């Protein structure tokens, strides 16, 4: 049950990250809009992390989480929890940058951050609630 929910949320996150990756490479709206938003965030210098677009990092993260959900073993559950909690940390940092550094909010990035929060909660619950060995 928890696993199914986790897969669903990870797929939603994957969809968002895919969209943001496409936008990043297609270079849609190559402007800084006065109405703050995704263009500002995606065009900012924070949009890449050590040369890699953060959208791509998100994409890879969600793929890894989905891959870890293929198996229902103790090890797999631990890996999912690790990835989701790590992803949550990174999302928290990006949201901080959006709000306090860029003073711009990208609704898609917020959507991804919410997915990561849900994933971290679900993965933790799943790991703790699994039958003891």
């Amino acid at each position: 049950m928890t696993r199914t929910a986790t897969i669903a949320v990870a797929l939603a996150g994957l969809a968002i990250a895919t969209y943001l990756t496409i936008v990043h490479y297609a270079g849609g709206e190559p402007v800084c809009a006065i109405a703050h938003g995704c263009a500002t965030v995606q065009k900012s210098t924070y949009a890449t992390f050590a040369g890699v677009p953060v959208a791509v990092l998100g994409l890879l993260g969600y793929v890894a989480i989905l891959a870890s959900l293929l198996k229902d073993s103790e090890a797999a559950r631990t890996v999912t929890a690790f990835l989701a909690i790590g992803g949550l940390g990174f999302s928290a940092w990006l949201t901080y940058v959006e709000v306090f550094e860029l003073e711009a909010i990208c609704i898609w990035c917020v959507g991804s951050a919410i997915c990561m929060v849900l994933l971290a909660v679900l993965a933790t619950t799943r790991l703790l609630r699994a039958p003891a060995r």
Partner: protein
Amino acid sequence: MSQSKQELRAQRRAHREALEQAHTAADTRRRRLFRLGAAVASAVVIVAIAAVVSTSSNGAPKSVTASTVVQGVPETNGVLGDPNAPVTITEYVDLQCPVCAQASTNTLPTLIEDYVKTGKVKLEARTLHFLGPDSTTAAKVAAGAQQQNKLWSFLETFYANQGSENSGYVTDDFLKSVATTAGVNADQALEYAKTDPATAALDKANADAQAVGADSTPTFTIKRGDGQETTLAVGATDLTTALDKALAG
């Protein structure tokens, strides 16, 4: 009697098994909590690394690089090129906008080489400041540079050294370095930035942007003589096609 002995044995076994199970469950739980703790710790490390990488790669550049985009083109109070050129192109910018910095290398060189230097077009700039406090500080010093007929040189040098938005990199030292490299008397420009006319210049730029409907940067507008100012293009795109069409029409 023997029955009760058997029962007793079964009871003891059940009790032992239950104890073992409880033990295993507690063990597993402890192990899992420990792993979760490790996951949280690694998340904290990720955030710390993210913060360090961002600040080291996004902060202000250490040495200021010069820009040659407007080199050798005369400027008269913010108007770049021949003041009598029949067509005016105005660029609406925010000094912190990364796309404006892109335009400085993608759009402007061709525009200046083919249209400004040939006397067909003169360039004006309106420095907006919607991206945050660093934009405002920079825009005021840009107004100071304009007083010295060095606005464009200052803008392009700034773009060549642009840091990350609102990271606080637009310090007096940074502005002085940019101004000096741009050929501006830095002290004078920074002094002017504190005056009311500098603030008024920012308000005028905002009003002009609103009047023409420029809601993102960079926006390029076109005006023939004293005619109506209209939007030519938005973004760091090549203006040649749009401009040729406008000049022919």
